[in-house]
């Protein structure tokens, strides 16, 4: 009897699942809250502070989307996810978007049926090794023990790199970044490999940062960006263009300080279209006209977000590098707002 009840309940659940997924935007508006999947903790990108307020580079993307859609940057429910649980949570509809330093790859986009809406950080995989090991290039690492986080693309890149250079290595699988650093400091592995941004952030916390070298090879492309489920293109557009708005705002010189003033109208038509005084772009997305202005007022433009959480004046101290505007030799290039 109990078994048939369970099966019945599952059937009902399945039917309800089909009926409920009408539109993510409507769901979010009805709920009054954006469910945003984030990292359980990554220095500079996502971590709650002592008062349990989430902060970081990835967090600000969630806040910007919430401000654009709901007008309230704090109307976000952060769902912390590990590398293993992030995709199932998104596929099962537990979260509306995933902003968790996730690499845009073919199979994730196509096979796992997600939609990457853009890139908010261009990263690449590097190596860190103790200076006393005496290596100057990753190609000298024949026979080295390598600490590597499981369930990530870095694991696959590492295998590819060593195979294509026909040198051998011994992997030491570990679960989290913190664990890897401890293993590295304790000498359990010769080198540690992960995204170069993570390496720089971690080296900054070491007692003697000068004793560690980040090897010059960057062995992979790691475009990190927010993603949504396949199948709801309207919602994907909202997240994509919120991210684009942050990037375009930097190019156009719109900051959190002057956005209120510029929202009254300017001589630059593109700024006007971005901030909603012309063009009716917000309406096309199904949002208010001042959607982008709301987001910018909260988080500031891309450059401000970068400087606040991971820029050169923070303990993490990352340079803009590839993440500079295209006008300054980087890769950030927002499509035109028209």
């Amino acid at each position, binding site marked *: 009897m109990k078994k048939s009840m369970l099966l019945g309940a599952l059937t009902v659940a399945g039917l309800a699942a089909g009926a*409920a997924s009408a539109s993510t935007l409507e769901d979010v508006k009805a709920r009054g809250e954006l469910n945003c999947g984030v990292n*359980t*903790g990554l220095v500079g990108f996502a971590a709650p502070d002592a008062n349990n307020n989430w902060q970081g580079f990835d967090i600000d993307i969630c806040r910007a989307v919430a401000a654009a859609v709901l007008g309230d940057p704090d109307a976000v429910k952060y769902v912390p996810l590990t590398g293993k649980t992030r995709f199932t949570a998104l596929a099962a509809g537990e979260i509306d978007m995933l902003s968790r330093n996730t690499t845009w790859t073919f199979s994730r986009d196509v096979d796992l049926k997600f939609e990457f809406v853009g890139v908010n950080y261009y990263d690449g995989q590097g190596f860190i090794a103790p200076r006393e090991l005496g290596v100057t290039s990753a190609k000298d690492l024949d026979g080295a023990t390598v600490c590597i986080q499981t369930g990530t693309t870095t694991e696959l890149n590492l295998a590819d790199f060593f195979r294509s250079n026909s040198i051998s290595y011994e992997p030491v699988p570990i679960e989290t970044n913190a664990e890897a650093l401890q293993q590295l400091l304790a000498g359990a592995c010769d080198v540690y490999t992960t995204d170069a941004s993570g390496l720089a952030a971690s080296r900054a*916390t070491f007692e003697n940062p000068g004793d560690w070298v980040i090897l010059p090879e960057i062995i992979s492309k790691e475009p990190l960006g927010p993603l949504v489920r396949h199948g709801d293109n309207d919602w994907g557009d909202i997240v994509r263009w919120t991210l684009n708005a942050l990037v375009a705002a930097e190019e156009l010189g719109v900051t959190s300080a002057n956005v209120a003033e510029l929202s009254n109208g300017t001589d630059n038509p593109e700024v006007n279209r971005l901030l909603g005084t012309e063009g009716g772009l917000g309406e096309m997305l199904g949002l208010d006209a001042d959607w982008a202005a709301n987001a910018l007022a909260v988080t500031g433009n891309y450059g401000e977000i970068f400087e606040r959480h991971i820029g050169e004046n*923070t303990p993490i101290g990352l340079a803009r590098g590839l993440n500079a505007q295209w006008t300054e030799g980087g890769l950030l290039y927002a499509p035109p707002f028209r």
Partner: protein
Amino acid sequence: MSDKPAHNVAFVRETTLPPSPPPVAETGAIKWMRENLFSSAFNSIMTILGVLAVYQILSLALPWLLNGVWNASSIRDCREILDGATGGCFAVLTERWHQLVFGRYPQDSYWRPTLAFLLMFAAFAPVLFSNLPKKMLIFTGLYPFIAYYLVWGGSVLVPILSLVGFAVGYVVYTRLVDRSFATGFFGGVAAAIAVWYIGGFIINEDSTFLALEQVESRDIGGFMLNLILGVVCLSVSLPLGIVLALGRQSRMPIIKWICVVFIEFIRGVPLITLLFVANVVLAYFLPPGTNFDLILRVMIMITMFAAAYIAEVIRGGLAALPRGQYEAGDSLGLDYSQSMRLIILPQALKISIPGIVNVAVGLFKDTTLVSVISMFDLVGMVRGPILASTDWNGVYWELFGFAALLFFVFCYGISQYSQWLERQLQTDHR
């Protein structure tokens, strides 16, 4: 001697000699050391090595403990204050202790779980110590509802409704149980469900009657989460384990096979797999938007896991009883439930105590596994948010040492209680 003439005797001592002190090597500390530490060459070497080892550990640990920094805003601050000297950066505990203990629970409501924690002792006391008045058991029965209300908040009507459901079910059970156990049991369950179903219509979900601020399960974390999981899962899995153990010995084939399959299946699967099922796989079957509470899912999985193990421990206890005990029950004309309740289980459970405690301590520590499915229990809080903050990235020993200390206190307490209980229940003449 007395017949010899006195003048022949050159000297006679008339008083007894004062006892001379024993040789230095045979008294006090030196004797103790000779006997216990240096009784042979091998023991002497081991003693010296032992002393050296203790000295090594203390010379590392003591400066680190005593020279620790308790007031700093980040690990860089700590290093500046220490200026190269050895010392722990305990400032992370000063700043983040509330997250380690309460997770992301609202800060102005810490009194609620604290009160629930203190009341827990009052609730458990009559169960754990048999010499307390039996009336205290009433509070034990009420405690789960009080604790739920305190920790999760919301309207007071919800726990009251579930309490009324249980009460009505119990009353129906006692009325019907005379006819047969099955009638009583299913009648009671049906009555309880009826009460909850009808009550669900009467109580508005958003009722604010005597409402405490509602706290989401997601925000419950830290050591509090480990305690909640440990206490709830153990309390539920113990009776469930007894039922499973008895069921496995049952002569009714269906019941026996259900119990065997359940136990063998759950024992054959790692706990972490069950947790992944609870967290990830179930989400595919539930419609989006349904909120089958994650903590509840995890509780069910851990309870099933613990129940399977406890069932096997108790089965060992049952098997250890001589057959004569079962026959004694039969010969007294007791029915199955009476002979189990009065003769078999009291003895079997007593034998099983060490095993049950073993499972209990192991289970309590296993609750830290939930950090892998991104719940912020004590270990999850350390590994995730705190080590990932720009301020405290790199502080390991202090945080994990604190976690180990908390767990040690509780596990040691459990084990001491169980030893006391064994002495209390000792009836044989060993």
